[in-house]
């Protein structure tokens, strides 16, 4: 890796979102269907927060709240760290680990275009691509 990898090369294109007034059972079903750990929360068209599996475990299950009676907006995080798609992966990886966030929405101007997760970044780990290529050759 030459340190010049841009975010858009490793991010997942497209954003899976949930409406802020959905309930937690709906959000959980979507997380499972899509097999992901977090959703971008939208109100009309605007991104207003993020909800991850951890929020549901901490704020709903641990508290003994009813999942059907709780709305996504009640537990989402609103201190949104957002990355530009042209940012360097190195910088974003560092910002994520400093702020202990595991997923960051990616924007192009004002538009949400994707999401980058810790898993995406680890896939760009120095040497990882080479090893995957070797495996493909063996197969």
């Amino acid at each position, binding site marked *: *890796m*030459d*340190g010049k990898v841009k975010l858009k090369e490793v991010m997942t294109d497209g954003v899976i979102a949930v409406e802020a007034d959905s309930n*937690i*059972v709906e959000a*959980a*079903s979507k*997380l*499972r269907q899509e097999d992901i*750990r977090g959703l971008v929360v939208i109100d009309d068209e605007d991104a207003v927060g993020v909800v*991850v*599996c*951890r929020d*549901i*475990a*901490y704020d*709903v*299950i*641990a508290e*003994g709240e009813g*999942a*059907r009676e709780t709305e996504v907006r009640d537990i989402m995080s609103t201190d949104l760290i957002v990355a530009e798609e042209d940012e360097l992966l*190195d910088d974003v*990886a*560092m910002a*994520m*680990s400093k702020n*202990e966030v*595991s997923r960051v929405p990616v924007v192009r101007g004002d538009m949400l275009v994707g999401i980058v997760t*810790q*898993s995406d*970044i*680890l*896939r760009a*780990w*120095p*040497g*990882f691509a080479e*090893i*995957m290529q070797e495996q493909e050759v063996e197969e």
Partner: protein
Amino acid sequence: MTFEEDVTVKELMTEGVIAIQQEKTVKEAAKILREEGIRGLVVVDEEDAEGVIVCRDIVYQVVSENNDPEEVLVEDIMSTDLIVAEEDQLLDDVAMAMARNDISRVPVVRDDMLVGILTQTDILRAWPGYAEVMEEEIEMEADATPRETSTEGSCESCENYSEDLRETNGMLLCEECR
């Protein structure tokens, strides 16, 4: 590329393991997760690690079905296909295994004993350049005491004792390894 290739798991793992008995309820597991501010627990039966439970398991298997977290037990939803890392394994290898299997945390063992946990967050702390940035921040805060030109101790590469360790590329290295 500035990443030190011989970093081992134990240098980055979180020592100690926060565990839960397999017959506890999912609600109890969620409470421990919240109290500890973590995303996953090692599941034990008596002393032995039997599995792992993460927030995602709770959401996928309990919340999405609207099941009662006070009725469902940890053992009902834990993952048992445990990938475990040895504390002496190279970080590179473990990071790749984690990325390939799409898992976010692995228990770390020393022989048979659980000694810690390694998460994706821990690994990102070893991201190329991150250590340097952190060092710069520390240096800015540090007193302006000149560093000794040589010290004694264990070489950070070959681990042999040396009385002539010098800092090279951010590591204290003996004459042979410099």
